[in-house]
């Protein structure tokens, strides 16, 4: 059973995290709310799929793919540059904790542990890019057919 409090906490965390990040990169004000929602959905996928037995890497890919597709749709509908939404799609799955753990391990000269944490973080980043690319690719195929 998934505790509702956890879900709310994560949804709110990714929503506000992405909105704060959007404010830092100064995205247009009307884009703040949709980008927060996209980020929350991406994080929800990323968090829920592993609970259903899917690997974390695949979950990152699926989350980013969804975020990328939604981002392209929102960007076309609202006539806003798509960078804004693509960025908020990848921000919640940036492996901040993994990278920090890698740094901490390397700082304490635990090279093996640090390297394995680093490789894990790198795979997540690669999956993020892959999800983003697949979404953009789908968008181009669909859009160019019209």
């Amino acid at each position, binding site marked *: 059973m998934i505790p509702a409090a956890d879900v709310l906490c994560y949804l709110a965390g990714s929503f506000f*995290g992405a909105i*704060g990040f959007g404010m830092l*990169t100064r995205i247009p*004000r009307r884009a703040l709310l949709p980008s927060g929602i996209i980020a929350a959905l991406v994080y929800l996928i990323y968090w829920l799929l592993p609970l259903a037995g899917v690997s974390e890497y695949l979950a990152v890919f699926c989350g980013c793919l969804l975020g990328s597709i939604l981002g392209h749709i929102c960007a076309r509908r609202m006539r806003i*540059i798509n*960078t804004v939404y*693509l*960025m908020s799609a990848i*921000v919640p799955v940036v492996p901040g904790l993994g990278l920090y753990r890698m740094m901490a391990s390397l700082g304490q000269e635990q090279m093996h542990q640090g390297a394995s944490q680093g490789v894990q973080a790198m795979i997540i980043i690669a999956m993020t890019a892959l999800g983003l690319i697949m979404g953009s690719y789908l968008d181009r195929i669909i859009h160019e057919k019209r």
Partner: protein
Amino acid sequence: MQGGKAGVSYPGDNTVSVQEMEALQLAAQLIMENGGETFRAEETVRRMGEGFGLQQVESFAVPSGLFISYRTEEGRLETSVRRVHHRSTNLTMVDSVNQISRETAAGKLSPKEALVRLRTVSDLQKKGTGLRMLPAAAICAGGFTFLFQGGWTEALLSMGIAALVQGTGMLLARIHDPGIASNIVGGLLTALLPALAAGWIPGLITEAVVAGALMPLVPGVAMTNAVQDTLRGDMVSGLSHGTSALMTACLIAGGALLAPPLIRLIQGGGL
């Protein structure tokens, strides 16, 4: 006067149709200076140029500069080079330029009108960001701390640290730091302060605080641009954005790695 439709000429140079070229240059420059992708700058030049009725509009941009060339109505070939120096992130500005470009491409704006509107956008760039960035960094850090299993104590602490790091970065930007010192200091403060605070607050989840407070420093725009430019086949710009993201990450990590010896020093253990 020989210039373009609304030709304004520089003294001693009566062959250049300045307004069209200036509008194209300014549009592309604004996009690249504010964190837009390179392909977007190139596409904007092409669309706006065609909207002005120019022929054979070509542009080539890399993140540090751009080349524009076109043929005027009289059949003259004109070319320009512009170097892009200052780099910051303001996606609202990129979006505004994009809006102007759309209207120009639809034939709604003359070169003069486009230039006037672009200059208005450019003037906004000179205004400072003000203190709005401090709460932005705090919101960002606080939100992500919850994702890293932190509670309210951790979130509040990382919000404070993120705002402090952002403030320090803005102070360093005033003395023309190109982002090097601010990232090192940011990484150092983010790793140092939670570790010190852990001595005062029992049971503090240090790594949640650090990872949360690091999030505002993540080069999100550079990462997105690297993917987008590479995807469009612009490998040079993709690599360039990717390198920029990697360098930011390395600087932050370097700063953070300075923290453990400093902590030992502060706690009286010697280096």
